């Protein structure tokens, strides 16, 4: 256990472990995995060690998430439901804001668009709303993570899963009841994926900031 490690472990796996490990154990867990990875890489080769690291990461995340749920189920349920309500309430704000600004501009500033102005109008109408909604999702992810305290990733992951499950579930039920023959993967479902990822990213941002602050405090 004393030899220095030859190669670093898989970056994404290491990032995920650091993300899901509870605050006081994050340093020990990542350190333990790195120590064993170094030993294994020296004994059985880097490829085998990387494979082991990924397997350990997946199992560790499953255990840490389930332990997080069991440790504070009401906090997680409360933050997830709160996040869902917040998203339902604020989700359309960017759309309304951008449309209002564009309408105001059209009626009061430039009633007749030139071709580049019309292209800009279309750009903001299509992409601006999308970006705004994704940003709102990330912000809500941050709020949920802040409210969940030490269980930021469990809460934001649960909210992401809920957001994915609700529209997919409704889509599964709808064709059966209405006989609709629409393609299963609608653009709004693709957007739901984006929303879920942004909520998760919001949780990750809060988590990383908290970890950095804790490290600064312990090194001071």
């Amino acid at each position: 256990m004393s030899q220095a490690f030859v190669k670093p472990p898989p970056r994404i796996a290491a990032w995920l472990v650091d993300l899901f490990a509870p605050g006081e154990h994050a340093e020990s867990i990542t350190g333990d995995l790195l120590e064993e990875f170094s030993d294994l890489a020296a004994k059985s080769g880097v490829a085998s060690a990387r494979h082991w690291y990924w397997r350990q990461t997946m199992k560790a995340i499953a255990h840490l998430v389930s332990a997080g749920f069991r440790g504070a189920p009401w906090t997680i349920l409360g933050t997830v439901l709160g996040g869902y309500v917040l998203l339902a309430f604020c989700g359309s704000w960017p759309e309304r804001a951008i449309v209002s600004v564009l309408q105001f501009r059209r009626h009061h500033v430039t009633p007749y668009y030139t071709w580049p102005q019309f292209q800009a109008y279309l750009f903001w109408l299509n992409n601006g709303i999308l970006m705004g909604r994704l940003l709102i999702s990330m912000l809500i992810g941050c709020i949920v993570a802040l409210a969940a305290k030490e269980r930021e990733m469990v809460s934001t992951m649960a909210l992401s899963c809920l957001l994915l499950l609700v529209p997919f579930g409704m889509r599964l039920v709808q064709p059966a009841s209405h006989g609709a023959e629409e393609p299963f993967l609608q653009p709004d479902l693709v957007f739901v994926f984006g929303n879920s990822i942004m909520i998760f990213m919001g949780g990750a941002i809060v988590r990383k900031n908290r970890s950095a602050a804790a490290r600064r405090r312990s090194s001071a």
Partner: protein
Amino acid sequence: MLHRDYLGEFEHIVVLALLRLGERAYGVTVRQEIETRTRREVSIGAIYATLARLAEKGYVKSRLGDPTPERGGRSKRFYQVTAKGMAAVNRTHRAFHSMSEGLHLVERYS
């Protein structure tokens, strides 16, 4: 006797590993000890989730070691069984012993 006074199966194994390892008990050694003795793959996440639960119940306590270069400058967290943990492991052991007494499990099922 309350239900919470007994250790779960994996909690029991982890506490026994801590007792076997003594001063050297931290994540890596505990995981390896359990893997070697039980011949089943154990994840570091399972070890830490169990240790956190045991610490919450007051059955184990931990202290941070010094950071080492082979761990990328990260510290080891050493674990130790408390008196309350010792009482719990004894109680669980006695319950198992009492339940299995006279069954001759090894001869019957091995």
